[in-house]
C-alpha cells in the first residue's frame, strides 16, 4: 500500500467514525445494570473483553450478554435483568474477571442501582393488601414500612440487587423496579477523553 493510499484510507475511516457517531447517537447514557464491582461505564466497555467468564461463574445465571440491538458499544458485555434473575451478591464475577473490568470489591462497596416502588402498580399502595414480599426478600433491609404501613425504599441502603423486582408478585412489569440510578462505580485513574 502506498503512503498516499494509507492516509486516504485512515482519513476515510476517521470520517466514517465521526459521522456515525453523530448519526447513530453512539454516546448515550447507559441504562444497563452492571454486575457488582463493575468499573465506570466509559472504562468498562473498553476494559471488558467479553470473555464470558462472569456469565459462566454466576450461580443463578443472572448475568446476560447484552444483545447487539441494545447498542454496539455495550454489545457482548454482561448485565443484569432483575425481573428475570436477581443478583445474589456472591461477588464471584469480580474474582474471575481477567481484565479488572469487574473488580473484586467488598460487599459494603456494592451499589449497582436503586429500587423504586411504582405506587400505581403496588397492591399494598393501591388495594391495602398485606403483601410485603419485597420487604421480606431484601438482603440489605432497604425496604421498610412508612407511618401508613406502606412499603418504601431507602435509596441509601439499597444496593440494586433486584431481589425485590424478581419476587414482586404483580404480573407483567413489577411494582418495584431497579434502575442503575445512583450506582457507585470505581473510576480508573486516566486521562479524560477530550471529545466526550
Amino acid at each position, binding site marked *: 500500500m502506498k503512503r498516499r493510499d494509507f492516509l486516504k484510507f485512515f482519513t476515510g475511516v476517521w470520517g466514517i467514525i465521526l459521522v456515525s457517531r453523530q448519526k447513530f447517537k453512539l454516546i448515550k447514557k447507559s441504562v444497563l445494570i452492571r454486575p457488582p464491582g463493575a468499573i465506570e461505564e466509559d472504562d468498562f466497555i473498553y476494559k471488558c473483553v467479553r*470473555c464470558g467468564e462472569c456469565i459462566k461463574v454466576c*450461580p443463578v445465571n443472572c448475568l446476560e450478554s447484552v444483545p447487539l440491538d441494545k447498542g454496539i458499544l455495550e454489545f457482548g458485555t454482561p448485565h443484569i435483568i432483575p425481573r428475570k434473575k436477581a443478583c445474589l451478591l456472591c461477588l464471584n464475577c469480580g474474582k474471575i474477571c481477567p481484565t*479488572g473490568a469487574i473488580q473484586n470489591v467488598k460487599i459494603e462497596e456494592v451499589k449497582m442501582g436503586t429500587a423504586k416502588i411504582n405506587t400505581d402498580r403496588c397492591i399494598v399502595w393501591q388495594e391495602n393488601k398485606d403483601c410485603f414480599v419485597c420487604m421480606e426478600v431484601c438482603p440489605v433491609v432497604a425496604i421498610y414500612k412508612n407511618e401508613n404501613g406502606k412499603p418504601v425504599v431507602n435509596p441509601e441502603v439499597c444496593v440494586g440487587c433486584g431481589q425485590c423486582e424478581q419476587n414482586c408478585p404483580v404480573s407483567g412489569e413489577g411494582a418495584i423496579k431497579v434502575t442503575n440510578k445512583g450506582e457507585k462505580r470505581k473510576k480508573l485513574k486516566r486521562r479524560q*477523553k477530550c471529545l466526550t
Partner: protein
Amino acid sequence: MHKKSVKILFKLSTQGFFIFLFFYFFKKTTFPVSESLPLNFFFRIDLFLAIFTTISTLHFTYLFLPAVIVLLLLLFLGNFFCFWFCPFGGIIDYANIILLRKKWKIKIKLPVYFRYLKIFIFWTITFTSITTIFINIPFLFWIFDPYVILMRGMLFRRILIVFSLIVFLSVLIPRFWCNNICPLGYLNYLIGIKLRNIIKRKI
C-alpha cells in the same frame, strides 16, 4: 524414531496438554470460584487483549502481568506461542489429524491478497484503539481473539457455529485462521520474529 517425528509428537502432546487445560479450567469455572486454580489464566496471558485494553483505557492492570512474561519469553524464545502453546491452534491441528486432512486431495489456493487480511485487521484494531483514547467509538477487537471465540463458543450456540466454521475452513485450507486472520498470531509474529530480529541485529 526420526528426529523430526519426535519433535512433532512432542509438539502435539504439548498442544494437547494446553487444550486439556483450557477445557479443564472452563469446567472448573463454576460457583464458588476456586482460589487455588488460575481459572482465567488463558485470558491473562493473552498479549493481544493485554495490549489493546491497556491502550484503549490508558490503564495497565496487574492482572496482565502473565502477558508481560509472555512478551519477554517471545523476545527470548521467538514465536513459541502459536505452534506450541495456543489451544485454538492446537484444536485446528488436532482437527486436521482426526479428519485425516492429508488423505484428502483438496488443494485450495487463496488469492495472494488474503495474506494481507491479518495485517489489515491488526492495524485497523491498533488505529481504533488509539482513537478510543479520545472518543467513545465501538471497539470490537475482542471478536478476533481466539480465546474469546473459544470461550463464548462453549457458552453460546451461535458462536459455536462460527468456531466450527473456522475449524472446518482451517482443515480445508491449512491453518486458515492462523495464517490469514488471527491478530494475536500476527502480534506474536511481530514481537517474536520481527522485533526479536531487530534486537538481535543490534546486539
